[in-house]
């Protein structure tokens, strides 16, 4: 059920979320044109967005062990998705988390933050707790694969940081997610 074809879009918005709001605002003006553009089912802009990241690192690729490297290697599997009101790890999620774990075990000095998110169709406070629960489910699975829990921070944004802006099932499915971000 989880389409991973929108990962590039997510990366843009998600990259901003852990930053302070002031910085976020500054970036916002720079990215404001991109974030909404990925929403329409138009492959053109998505491809353009996708090629942006490698373009800047064409000579040697991302620095090994960096967030850029993590994203390049994971190819969208930095994010897992949940059903409505659920926090369980399904087979798709497990495969993505195994890829994340492989990378994290390769770079044992790196720490990561797992962001938990919800769709907009729930109450604000419950969604804060539910996002926390989803991020912790991802963390627990990574730990079960041998990643030291001390390297994994979790944070919930509830429904406050959607990546898909529509009010429909497709958008909500994209927003019910846990995103792993490497702390460079």
């Amino acid at each position, binding site marked *: 059920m989880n389409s991973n074809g929108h990962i590039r879009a997510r990366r843009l*918005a998600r990259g*901003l979320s*852990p930053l*302070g*709001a*002031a910085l*976020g*605002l500054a970036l*916002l003006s720079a990215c*404001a044109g991109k*974030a*909404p553009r990925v929403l329409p089912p138009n492959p053109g802009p998505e491809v353009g967005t996708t090629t942006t990241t490698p373009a800047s690192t064409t000579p040697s690729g991302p620095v090994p062990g960096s967030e850029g490297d993590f994203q390049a290697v994971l190819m969208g599997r930095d994010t897992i998705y949940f059903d409505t*009101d659920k*926090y369980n790890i399904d087979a798709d999620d497990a495969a993505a988390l195994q890829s994340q774990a492989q990378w994290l075990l390769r770079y044992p000095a790196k720490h990561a933050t797992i962001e938990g998110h919800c769709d*907009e*169709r*729930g*109450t*604000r*406070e*419950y969604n*804060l*707790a*539910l996002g*926390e*629960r989803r*991020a*912790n*489910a991802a963390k*627990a699975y990574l730990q079960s694969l041998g990643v030291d829990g001390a390297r994994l921070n979790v*944070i*919930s944004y509830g429904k*406050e*940081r*959607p*990546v898909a*802006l*529509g*009010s429909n099932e497709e958008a909500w499915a994209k927003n019910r997610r846990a995103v792993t971000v490497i702390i460079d």
Partner: protein
Amino acid sequence: MIDVNIRKSGTGRPAPRPHAARRRLLPWLALALAAPALAQPVAPAPAVPEAAAPAPAASAAATPVPASAAAAPDALTGSVTDDSAWQSLGIDIPAFATDADKPTPASVDGSSGLGTAALGRAIAEVITADLRNNGLFKPVGPNALPQVPFAEVAAPDFAGWAGRNAGMLVQGAVVAGTDGSLDVGCGLYDVRLQQQLIRTSLTLPPADWRRAAHKCADTIYSRLSGESPFFDSRIAYIAETGPKDHRMKRLAIMDSDGANHRFITTGQAMALTPRYSPDYRSIAYLSYLDGEPRLYIYDIATNHQRLLVATHHPTFAPRWSPDGKFLLYSMAIAGNTNIYRIPVDGGPSQQLTDTPGINIGGSYAPDGKRIVFESDRSGSQQVYVMNADGSNQRRISFFGGRAATPEWSPRGDLIAFTHIAGNLRIAVMTPDGSAMRYLTDSWQDEAPTWSPNGRIVQFFRTAQGSGHTSIWQVDLTGHNLRRLPTPVDASDPAWGPVRP
């Protein structure tokens, strides 16, 4: 005769009049004759001593009336049996008079240094807006009415007013005190009976002139409806700006009518879910300061804030106890969220819930003995009640769908909550979970908060698609749905008590 009890019929409870005993009822003539020495400051002093009321010289009409309709004037004919009929009660509210138009430091709509005459008009306009927005009355404001001479304030020209169709008349005066304060008095009159029904007066700093209007509106509303007052109260909320995926969310406060708006935080850290302390001195809220969602207590006078709980676990959902001495909060540990209670002035937390899953929120009954909260221990969000020490937890919501964000009415008789069955709607039920009924029907309404008198519920509405948020209110009949004026998008309203 007018049945002033009709507004209470939905609850079957006697109308409490706790504020009648506290309200200062000064002799109206004394105020009209500009004797400010008799008046006591209302702000910023705390509560007026209860012993101060009723004033010895108060006439029979000014003594606190019983809540029943017994005192309703017989001369007003026509049986009032439903809301639409009730709304036909007209009230004329001419500009308040002044003995001499003296300048004050007060500002109205951006103009400062207004005289007492201009303030008298502005006060009448605020009273008119309060009563009109409440939906129960059909007030006519000062712009459509003749100016009342000061000499007439204490002795209305009943014959003249009878020529109009309004059954009720509100007259008042604004007098500049010798110490820079403002004396404001108002009276409610039955035009056909040619009788004063109630009056009130207070002394306050000119900058707080709107409070005088709200106190007057409260007095009129209480006298005519039998309900407790609520206009003179404030609201904390979250001001939202920016696109849907990068909303800036700031803590903000305003009067119950949206006036005196003020942003509290800058928006650098996302702020959510504020709750005013019962004494209005501080606000508990969630902030992502330092990148972690945790609860802070913000002191409004000093503009300082402190962490409520020194922890790196996320803390959510602050809720004051009715006496302001404790806060409920919810804390997530390894994905499980439970409810705790902490003394506001420091001390260890007491864990109240201990089940797998999410236990969150919590709202005290007005007597502080029980707490209604939300838990998904059954598999989905439902509403539970427990004793204040966490004992005797039991589910009360059994009507299908999900039930969230319960808030106990200040009257104790009802619990407002968000019902989720597809759309999110505001609903109420009794504390035993019965008599559930909806107050709203929209795409997404959530997070109810009660008016101080437990007769109105505010909540926030999210627009499908755009994600724009706005604060609305609706009364317990499900009527009088109204959007509050806010300068930007608004969510998470938290209504405080009536100010002393």
